[in-house]
């Protein structure tokens, strides 16, 4: 798996969320994926809980459905800015990478704030078509604080 493929997948992932194409977001993951949002402190202490915790693509689809149909929140969007992925040796389970991110949140009224910084700890696997999919994405936010709510995924 080449770094360019992973970088391209990362770029598409960011655009997917930032352009409100959330229905396509679960497609970046394998069927039996693990997606979790946590904080650096929880990660360091080995705490297993997440702000979001999903172990199937179905749960990610449910997240999107809940955001669209059930949850109430003020309209807002994100702007992801990704750093360069650091790739590890390819192992039997796939390729692991670490990618830093910044996410700004733009509220309905125009206010833009730095909402989160952190890093993606990923495990990539090729699907049958040869496209890299996320078997794991651990989103480790640097701060232990979340402002108001975390509705859209990171």
């Amino acid at each position: 798996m080449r770094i360019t493929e992973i970088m391209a997948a990362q770029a598409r992932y960011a655009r997917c969320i930032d352009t409100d194409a959330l229905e396509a977001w679960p497609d970046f993951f394998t069927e039996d994926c693990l997606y979790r949002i946590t904080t650096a402190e929880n990660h360091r202490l080995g705490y297993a809980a997440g702000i979001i915790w999903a172990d199937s693509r179905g749960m990610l689809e449910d997240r999107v459905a809940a955001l669209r149909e059930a949850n109430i929140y003020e309209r807002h969007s994100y702007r992801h800015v990704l750093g360069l992925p650091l790739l590890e040796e390819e192992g039997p389970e796939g390729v692991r990478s670490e990618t830093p991110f910044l996410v700004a949140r733009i509220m309905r009224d125009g206010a833009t704030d730095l909402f989160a910084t952190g890093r993606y700890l990923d495990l990539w696997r090729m699907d049958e078509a040869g496209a890299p999919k996320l078997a794991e994405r651990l989103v480790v936010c640097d701060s232990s604080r979340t402002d108001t709510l975390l509705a859209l995924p990171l």
Partner: protein
Amino acid sequence: MPDHNPPAAALPPGLAAPPEVPWPEGLTRVPYWVFQREDVAALEQTQVFRGETWNYLCLEAEIANPGDYRATTLGGVPILAVRDHDGEIYAFENRCVHRGALIALEDFGHAREFTCVYHAWSYDLQGNLKGVAFKDGINGQGGMPECFRMSEHSPRKLRTAVVHGLVFASASDTVPPIEEYLGDEIMERIGRVLGGREVEVIGRFTQELPNNWKLYVENLRDSYHASLLHLFFTTFELNKLNMKGGLIVSESGGNHVSYSAIDREAEAKAANDYAAQNIRSESDYRLKDPSVLEGEDEFGDGVTLQILSVFPGFVLQQIQNALAIRQVVPRGVGRTDLHWTYFGFKDDSPALRKMRLKQGNLVGPAGYVSMEDGCVGGFVQRGVVGASDRHAVLEMGGTDAASTRTRATEASVRGFWKAYRACTGL
């Protein structure tokens, strides 16, 4: 000589200026100025948080061994909770008696003693001043005066009490013992979740709320909003108003429990009521992965939800198998920190532990049934700007603050204000 000045409106003690409107008698009106004024926030620090109340500090499990400490807050005041070698838990202000610096800088730690970084004054694990650097000066020069007695200086100490592994503290010498403060029903309901169990923390998150702390406390005690604001619950039959259950409000009004258990019979009957009301809860929305709702009846009583609060800012939550403690900490008039501690028990089966992680999706800043609670206080805070002479209306379910079988009531919100007014004199 006749006095021609009109009599000054009675100024509630502790307020810097008269309130915009008086607070009407009874429990059904809450003036919006109570969420907006700096002098009210200052009054709360002394009368509520450092007044006749017990405040949650931490879990006993977080300071399990002698020397373990946890830095936390009581209202806005920094506090250290420490386990000493006698096995007891001590709490004192995290403030050096010399010139006021924080004694401990980390949130957690293990210490033989505490040494202030500024001028190295040191304290034992109970908060007694034990050492003053250069006390006798250097080469006969300087040093503290003869009359200075270390024993006369210590950070303010708090009373502590442990209830089923929860550490509470009070700055008051006169507040009744914690068992009495909580009451039998609340004690029992805490015991239902925590009694005889060994707690294990599985996550810790802080949510910053854009509103006054009391708006969050109102929200968490408001059993009326759950099925109306949180569509996720109602859709998946977790928390309809027609479930079995009810509301317990303590005598003081300050503590409450809201609980529900699934009642299949009533459900079928009341489905019509929902449709007839045309409430925004009707949908064909179904989960792709319903395993998130396949929790265990771990307490063996069919109760799927128990939200318990202790005045002023403590919450114990059981939503199916998602267990958490929430600590509400004011950060100024319009900001609040909500500290979540997710936990399980040491003897959890792997399946139960995984269910806790899964059902963690229901709560917290991204929770299916709690993300709305993070914003709704802000909607009120912004909504009441310019309305400090107006009141909120709390008449759902009557005018009292008593326990009831229905959850379509604001009784426990009224209970909060009953306790609040008793504390503050407002």
